């Protein structure tokens, strides 16, 4: 098997390297990729959409359909992880452990017994270890700034590198950081599973709904200049605003999908303490 694989990989590699003879050279300004469609994007983006970041304009406006289905794909991936892994009915261990947060006293609750209603107790597993104080404190300090930066990346995607995908991943990473630095239950308390799943779908709906709104206003699907009458601005500025709305939808969908996938994969669908 090893030899067959090596032969396949080597022969494909040699074939591809021999084909590079026809490829344009490194950073050639006259290469086919740079001469047909891209000059139009570079020269016309500003007057057609008033967005200086060409990547954002092409992503959310010229190739709006592509990005919409890309968002649908990652939503489907999150859903697939959930369906594959999530376990709802499972055998509860006979004794459940609860830890009093302030004093650190652990209480063992027998099967059928109930804990006095109090917010001071948190559920823990038998393998629970206290989170490292330094890591916990540093993450507590960092997470708000990470989230603020993520919002900046989403909102400033028109003028600097950034946009919904990048900002959404950073937002998701901030919640995942909380789950890594403490445990999964802490992060799930902040970002409930239901909220996460609903927001994931809401992100896709914001995108598709913006497109449908353009349709209702009498222009093509995802043609944001139709929003001019709603937003009270000229059609070119309306395109810029439409891109922002869509990017927010993408950001929400990506954030929630990242958290959803992480929660399911790291706890194998049990939503206990995770890693």
């Amino acid at each position, binding site marked *: 098997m090893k030899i067959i694989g090596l032969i396949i990989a080597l022969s494909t590699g040699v074939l*591809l390297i021999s084909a*590079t003879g026809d490829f344009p050279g490194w950073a050639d300004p006259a290469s086919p990729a740079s001469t047909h469609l891209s000059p139009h994007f570079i*020269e016309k983006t500003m007057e057609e959409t008033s967005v200086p970041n060409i990547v954002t304009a092409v992503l959310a406006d010229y190739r709006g359909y592509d990005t919409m289905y890309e968002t649908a794909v*990652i939503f489907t*991936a999150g859903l*697939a992880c959930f369906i594959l*892994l999530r376990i709802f009915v499972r055998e509860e261990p006979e004794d459940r452990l609860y830890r009093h947060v302030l004093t650190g006293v652990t209480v063992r609750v027998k099967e059928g017994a109930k804990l006095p209603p109090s917010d001071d107790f948190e559920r823990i597993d038998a393998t629970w270890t206290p989170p490292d104080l330094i890591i916990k404190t540093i993450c507590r300090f960092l997470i708000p700034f990470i989230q603020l930066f993520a919002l900046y990346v989403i909102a400033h995607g028109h003028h*600097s590198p950034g946009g919904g995908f990048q900002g959404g991943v950073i937002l998701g990473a901030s919640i995942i950081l909380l789950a890594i630095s403490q445990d999964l239950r802490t992060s799930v308390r902040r970002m409930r599973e239901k909220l996460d799943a609903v927001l994931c779908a809401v992100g896709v709906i914001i995108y598709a709904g913006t497109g449908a709104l353009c349709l209702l206003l009498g222009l093509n699907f995802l043609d944001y200049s139709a929003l001019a009458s709603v937003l009270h601005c000229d059609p070119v500025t309306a395109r810029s605003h439409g891109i922002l709305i869509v990017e927010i939808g993408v950001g929400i969908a990506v954030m929630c*999908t990242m958290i959803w996938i992480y929660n*399911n994969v790291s706890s194998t669908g049990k939503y206990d303490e995770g890693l």
Partner: protein
Amino acid sequence: MGDLIQIVVAKYNYWIYITLMMIGLYAMIVKNNLVKKIVGMNIFQTAIILFYVSTGAKRGATIPILEHGHGEHGAGAHMIHAVDYINPLPHVLMLTAIVVAVATLGVALALAIRVYNRYDTLEEDEILAQIREK
């Protein structure tokens, strides 16, 4: 000799991506462990992302964000030349591809976890042997 160096300088980026891609392909075909196969798939995807981004490069051009894009836009405020900015299209395509790569990685790992729960192993030959026994 000079010609050879010219060819190497013009084409070495493609050779690097092809090497990376073949490492990924080899891992996907040969490796016995499912997680190693998934890692191979990721290396393969990374090679393709690098390839696409490199096709967007232009000598002497800057990132595809228009200068003086703020403030007075419109008629003749600033002439925009396509040669001054790198090709934005591969960047757009790969932006979405990176996120989709993460999503496929998540689904692949979820499947691997299900396989592990069922067969108590991630080695392909042991899984196949267990399937044949039944």
